[in-house]
């Protein structure tokens, strides 16, 4: 079920009504409603893949219980290994099997050996990379004894399948979300209203920005040879806004929806396009995944505790795995390598933690503007690999950009789209210190103006959107 669908517009109020109709002390009954709703939400897309969520939940629940019952290091390691094998095995089969087989065949063919292994005709289950990482983090935390395992099977299953963030994150840590299922929830007016604001803002970014950019971007990337350099560059810039609107929009809707049920999900985006360098960008983009890799890969590898070369190696590995997490295609690896190359100079010169807070002044200074534009340009160029069908296509795209026609007038999209993007950037700039673009601004704007703004945005969502596109991150 898509957040930007009529089905969800019916589903959400029904679940909301049922959930809050249950008295507060019966929070387990509320969990049952959320679990049933979450399975319905996921099964609405394809009920057969519910079994994968079920298996992943069951294994990690059992591993958690098993880890409490033994203090022996060897047995504990075995239990953790079981969790990793099941979760990474599911990912491996559904997401990476064909990629490895194809590359194996290419390699041995290059060496003169003929091989014909069978490929698997599988559909990639929506959100598999998200919920498997979420369940794995639980088992790892319990193994590390940084989290007490739960015996509440209902709470655990609901934690894994919680519908707002099930298919595209944020990838929640059990330490943050799981305890919320075991506590009494109270309806909080301010939180619910802010949840609705965040949903509205997410819908605006998805439906108005991302979906309208999609048409122009698709046309540009489908036939890059037919466009001039300036149009191709503009296409890449629009893709930067498309993927941001799409993914951060999804996260905003997810977090806002969770708030309606009195749950706090972690922040996933912190206005990344206002970053002044690549290191800051990665602290602000897809934060739940970045911190996941930091906690469960970078730090276990030694983090920055070893020599400079070890730190560089660890950073490179994290970027590479992160790229591969996005998809079984060399384009994502190339995207990750490019980001590593952007990042390493900052790391080597110890300048990767210069910009930890958002710009405080009302407007950025000229130097900050230049830094923001430089970072945005680097990120945009890397997105070309992310969007292209193959590495060859990406290079052809770059070749097209780096042609004399780069200085010609580009084929501009509609003025409305450019205005809408400008509106998004302006609102996000004003809200950059808050949780989301529309975070409370009571002090700054009187109520009629705020309500007028909300009505305007809602009207744009209803009437100004592109086609109903899937969320890009569903494929991951």
């Amino acid at each position, binding site marked *: 079920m898509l957040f930007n669908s009529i089905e969800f517009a019916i589903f959400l109020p029904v679940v909301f009504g049922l959930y809050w109709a249950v008295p507060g002390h019966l929070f387990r009954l509320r969990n049952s409603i959320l679990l049933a709703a979450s399975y319905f939400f996921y099964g609405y897309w394809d009920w057969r893949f519910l079994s994968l969520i079920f298996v992943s939940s069951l294994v990690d629940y059992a591993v958690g219980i098993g880890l409490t019952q033994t203090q022996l290091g060897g047995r504990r390691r075995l239990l953790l290994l079981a969790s990793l094998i099941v979760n990474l095995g599911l990912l491996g089969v559904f997401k990476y099997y064909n990629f490895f087989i194809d590359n194996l065949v290419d390699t041995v063919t290059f060496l003169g050996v003929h091989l014909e292994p069978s490929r698997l005709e599988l559909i990639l289950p929506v959100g598999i990379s998200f919920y498997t990482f979420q369940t794995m983090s639980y088992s790892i935390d319990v193994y590390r004894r940084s989290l007490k395992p739960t015996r509440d099977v209902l709470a655990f299953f609901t934690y894994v399948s919680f519908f707002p963030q099930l298919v595209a994150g944020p990838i929640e840590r059990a330490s943050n979300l799981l305890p919320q299922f075991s506590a009494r929830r109270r*309806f909080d007016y301010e939180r619910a*209203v802010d949840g609705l604001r965040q949903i509205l803002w997410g819908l605006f970014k998805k439906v108005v920005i991302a979906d309208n950019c999609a048409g122009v971007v698709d046309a540009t990337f489908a036939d890059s040879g037919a466009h001039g350099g300036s149009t191709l560059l503009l296409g890449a810039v629009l893709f930067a806004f498309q993927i941001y609107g799409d993914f951060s929009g999804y996260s905003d809707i997810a977090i806002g929806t969770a708030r309606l049920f009195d749950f706090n999900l972690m922040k996933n985006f912190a206005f990344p396009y206002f970053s002044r360098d690549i290191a800051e960008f990665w602290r602000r983009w897809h934060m739940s995944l970045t911190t996941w890799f930091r906690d469960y890969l970078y730090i276990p590898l030694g983090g920055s505790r070893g020599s400079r070369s070890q730190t560089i190696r660890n950073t490179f590995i994290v970027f590479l795995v992160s790229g591969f997490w996005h998809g079984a295609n060399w384009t994502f690896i190339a995207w990750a390598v490019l980001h590593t190359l952007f990042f390493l100079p900052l790391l080597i010169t110890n300048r990767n933690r210069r910009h930890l807070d958002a710009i405080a002044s009302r407007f950025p200074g000229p130097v900050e503007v230049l830094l923001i534009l430089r970072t945005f340009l680097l990120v945009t160029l890397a997105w070309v690999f992310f969007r292209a069908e193959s590495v060859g296509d990406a290079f052809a795209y770059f070749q097209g950009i780096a042609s004399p026609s780069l200085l010609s007038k580009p084929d501009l999209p509609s003025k*409305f789209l450019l205005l809408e993007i400008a509106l998004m950037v302006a609102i996000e700039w004003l809200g950059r210190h808050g949780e989301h673009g529309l975070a409370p601004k009571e002090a700054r704007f009187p109520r009629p103006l705020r309500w007028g703004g*909300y009505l305007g945005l*809602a*009207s744009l969502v209803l*009437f100004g*959107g592109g086609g109903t596109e899937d969320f890009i991150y569903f494929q991951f």
Partner: protein
Amino acid sequence: MKHFLLRLALFLSLLSLTCAALVVGTVELHRRTIDRCTLGAEIDTVIAGDSHTMWAIDDSQLPGLRNISLNAEGYRYTYLKLRHLLQTDHRIATIYIGVSYHNFAGYYDEYIYGVTFHDYLERYLSLLSRADYEGLVRYAPQHSLGLARSIVQRGFRPGLKGECLMYGQFPAEQKTQVFDASKMQARLEEQFYRSNRVVEPSVSNVEYLQKIVDLCRAHGLRVAALATPLHPEYERRIPASYRRLLRHFLQDSGLPYYDFADLTLSDAEFLPDGDHTNYAGAMTTTRRFKRYHEGG
């Protein structure tokens, strides 16, 4: 919770009012600019129809003639257009109506009333009455929101600019694709067959074609039916019931009928579906039509 629900209800009510105002406002913008929808004093002949006539006759080669056909246009909308045209352009003396087998097929209803119509409705916003809008809602009530969305999304900007979208003309884009038997098969199945059975005719198109003829005659115009060339293989596979339907209509209406039967086009002059001419086919068809038209 009560306070929250009340505030939410208030917001949704205001949003509904805003949406209604946008829909009504968009339609009103189009209605206010309808007077600008004229063809000009030099035009005395029009060709009306759908994509078949639109892509087959290059009106730039025919002085005094305008090809106002638009792709996917059902006769219901052609009728409304012509009714408006005859009120504003009094020099019109001759009307050619595109008539072919597919025009009678029931698949067309989706283009007249259904969701597919939503992709074209901005052309007709000024022409539709309140009853017409109600009819569209009744036909597909589950898509009412989509209808409202399409009205604003597709109609607002042209309405604001006062654009007249109801009259087409031969497109500037030169279509160069050529006949492809597999595409023709798909086209035939789309138009005439459902689950290996011949589809029912379109009641609306049959009714409004007759209304168009009556309207033109009531204004004392010369009216003729025009069937653009079809690929022989495509024509061979038209269901017999549709052949009869067209024959009976022509007999009953007594319309002069020109079907380019004396013109043979090659595969390279048809679009892949065998149902439309491409640019090269249009040039050949226009030359022949010119002779027919000038010969009276």
